[in-house]
């Protein structure tokens, strides 16, 4: 009898399945690793190219690693690209465009969200229409008009048009976010005697932080990588942005890819580092931006 029970218990215990081997999961893991390798392949090629000297370029296949590590390409490209200058230009344009866009669109979003009047509705739709119009569809008249405003070859000109083209999304994002912010806190501040402008900057703007972060991230991304607008508006070499400078480099170094690839690496590493560090915010920003539109 006892034996029987023990036997039974043992059997039951043994019946607990051993940790199941998930075939599906294993296959998935392998597939994703292969995908990652394929994804990295172009980057590996960039590194190979950038670290070869001219002899190596001719004597080895592109998929072969350099026979000796050669850093001179990087030195050469920093000078040829005027690296620090074009980086600085791009930072200035991106930062000013993003900050002004945030400022203007939060002010307009505030008014739209806090006044429920005819004109605020009208204002809202006036800006929303712009969401359907990418600047790429009107860049020819934009260029001519910018020319008559004296905006060619100036930073304020390109910043002006960046802000103008970002406002539809900015106003949309800010006014819809503002609708979720309770009005009571502002009213309390107003009762306490703070004026409207002070209330806006001290109370409202801090509450808009998530929306502001989203706007800055999505728009900076666009400005940083944009090519067409600087191509039109920044024609002199001293004002070049990264995309323009790099593309000019490609044209100059048609035969010496190693230098161009060194340029690709040094111009994208800062962005990749910053974005990987800020990945958490970045991902939040992207998904928030996407769902709002």
């Amino acid at each position, binding site marked *: 009898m006892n034996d029987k029970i023990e036997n039974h218990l043992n059997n039951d215990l043994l019946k607990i399945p051993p940790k199941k081997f998930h075939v599906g999961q294993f296959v998935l893991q392998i597939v994703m690793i292969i995908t990652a390798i394929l*994804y990295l392949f172009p980057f590996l090629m960039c590194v190979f190219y950038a670290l070869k000297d001219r002899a190596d370029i001719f004597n080895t296949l592109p*998929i072969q690693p350099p026979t000796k590590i050669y850093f001179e390409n990087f030195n050469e490209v920093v000078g040829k690209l005027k690296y620090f200058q074009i980086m600085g230009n791009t930072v200035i344009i991106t930062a000013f465009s993003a900050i002004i866009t945030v400022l203007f669109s939060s002010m307009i979003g505030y*008014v739209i969200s806090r006044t429920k009047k005819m004109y605020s509705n009208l*204002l809202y739709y006036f800006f929303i229409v712009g969401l359907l*119009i990418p600047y790429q569809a009107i860049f020819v008249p*934009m260029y001519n008009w910018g020319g008559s405003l004296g905006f060619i070859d100036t930073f304020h000109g390109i910043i002006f048009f960046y802000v103008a083209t970002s406002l539809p999304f900015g106003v949309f994002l800010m006014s819809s976010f503002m609708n979720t912010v309770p009005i009571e806190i502002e009213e309390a501040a107003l009762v306490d005697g703070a004026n409207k402008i002070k209330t806006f900057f001290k109370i409202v703007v801090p509450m808009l932080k998530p929306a502001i972060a989203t706007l800055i991230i999505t728009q900076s991304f666009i400005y*940083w990588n944009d090519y*067409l607008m600087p191509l039109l508006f920044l024609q002199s070499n001293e004002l070049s942005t990264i995309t323009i400078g790099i593309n000019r480099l490609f044209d100059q170094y048609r035969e010496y890819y190693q230098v161009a690839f060194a340029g*690709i690496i040094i111009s994208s590493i800062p962005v990749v580092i910053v974005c990987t560090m800020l990945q958490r915010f970045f991902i939040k920003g992207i998904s928030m931006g996407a769902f709002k539109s």
Partner: protein
Amino acid sequence: MLLKKLKRRKEFIYLLFILPGLIVYFVGMFIPILNGFGYSLTDWDGLSETKNFVGLANYLEAFKDQRVVYSFWFTLKFTFWNALIQNILALSFAIALDSKIKGKKILRTIIYIPALLSPILVGFIWNRIYTDVLPSLNSVMHTNFNFSLLSNPNTVLAGLVVVNNWQWIGYWMVVYLAALQSVPIELYEAIEIDGGNFWNKFKNVTLPMIAPAITVCVVSISTGSFKLFDLVVTATKRGGPGHASESIILLIYNMAFGVSRPSYASAISIVFLGCLMVFAMIQLKFFRNKEIQL
């Protein structure tokens, strides 16, 4: 009296808040649109003082111009394949990275990194990959594949679709990941209790729950692909071979600055704008209906 004054003051401050943005938007966006429409009805060459009114001649010419028709058709095909492949792969990768596999964070970062690069750089990198790197694989493996997709008018579209997908799948994967992570886990458990398999879960929970994300991704990928420009500047050396990869924006650019016909370019721009609007409306309507059905 005081109340009235306060109210007026409030309105004044609101006006102060609106004006800067409104002026910039009006001057920077609306006037160019109106100007563009104006140019499109003339024969202006961009430099001379005279602009002759030619009515709809530019539009009529555009509809008959083989180069214009080809460019619109090319961009439309590019958009279609991108929207299809990018959505399917982005969603698949997102589901894979939402499962229990290892190293999700590093995988996500790797797949996402290309989206951080400017298309100008991506185009150049892939131009070399197609012309040098992949053909060198042939000599290693003793095979004879034709990898030079970008130098053949018949395969240039496929080559560009590959490049564009490599760049952007990670971006949309992140959007899908966020959507997947917002699906309540109880819903999956309910299906598991009912004995449902992966496919049941996908069809009955995942798909309906992430329908809004699918709408967003399809619409954004399409509008993004319509604006194809930077990539073809470097990947195919400004729309080559010949005009085989001349996207709409590149065509407008060439017409305006290459052959100095901003009026004709403006007409093409206006047609493009019209297409974008129609397209956006169709897509939104189609997907909104679908979402309700699901």
